[in-house]
């Protein structure tokens, strides 16, 4: 049976010290010596654990991901991390527009990434979007405020209809009570719609062997 390529990303959020992260990586490699080629894995540790986990995963099929990427390449932005810094550590994916970063305490906003791709960051770092909160927002029926998933998509570079960088759109669902297949399908359709609007339908459709939005 053929599978589309699937990307499964561990987003640890603000959990695990570098030592705990290394223990996890060692355990995973023991638990999963083999995996179908159509499954890609990535892990997004907190920044302090990236290097240590990256060293352990470097010879493996498990990619290294960052939980966030700042918009600017360098400069006076205390506490932020650029795409170039991450790529130097072997990071190949970056989560952008995560709903938890968009809440009040952190306050990332829609369009936090500039429209002009040339002015932003390394083009090879793929973006991961997260759209699961969209349904929750709609189910609550409040309809007020920015839609987190739409915000994530609006954070992507490139004008509508023009090719953007590699984009891998995947999501988890925030609310486990809603995390059945129907929810997931709806959320993915929603996200594809946004990507289609942004980059054109060809790049947003699911394809036979891999996700087209990449």
């Amino acid at each position, binding site marked *: *049976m053929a*599978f*589309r*390529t*699937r*990307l*499964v*990303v*561990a*987003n*640890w*959020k603000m*959990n*695990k010290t570098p030592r705990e992260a290394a223990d*996890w990586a060692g*355990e*995973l*490699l023991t*638990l*999963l*010596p*083999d*995996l*179908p*080629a*159509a*499954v*890609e*894995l990535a*892990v997004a540790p907190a920044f302090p654990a990236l290097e240590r986990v990256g060293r352990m995963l470097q*010879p*493996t*099929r*498990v990619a290294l991901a960052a939980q966030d990427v700042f918009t600017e390449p360098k400069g006076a932005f205390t506490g932020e991390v650029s795409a170039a810094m991450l790529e130097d550590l072997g990071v190949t994916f970056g*989560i952008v527009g995560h709903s938890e970063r968009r809440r009040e305490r952190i306050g990332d906003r829609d369009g936090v990434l500039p429209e002009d791709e040339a002015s932003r960051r390394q083009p090879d770092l793929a973006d*991961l979007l*997260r759209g*699961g909160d969209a349904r929750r927002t709609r189910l609550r029926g409040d309809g007020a405020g920015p839609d987190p998933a739409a915000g994530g998509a609006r954070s992507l570079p490139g004008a509508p209809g023009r090719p953007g960088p590699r984009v*891998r759109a*995947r*999501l*988890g*669902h*925030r609310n*486990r009570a809603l*995390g*059945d*297949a129907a929810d*997931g*399908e709806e959320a*993915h*359709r929603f996200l594809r719609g946004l990507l289609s609007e942004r980059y054109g339908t060809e790049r947003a459709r*699911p394809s036979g062997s891999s*996700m087209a939005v990449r």
Partner: protein
Amino acid sequence: MTPANGADLFRSPEIDGGLVGGASLVAKDFAAIATAAGGGLTAGSAILPRPLDRD
């Protein structure tokens, strides 16, 4: 996405992957979700490349 709903989610043709939060903190749970993403198959390409694959 959790080990409990992973297989169900991956049966959908619309779903190409997952960003796994809390369940990813336990290696065993993340491994179970990764296995579900592969349709339950455990055989396949080695996660660690064979020596000849390294260059």
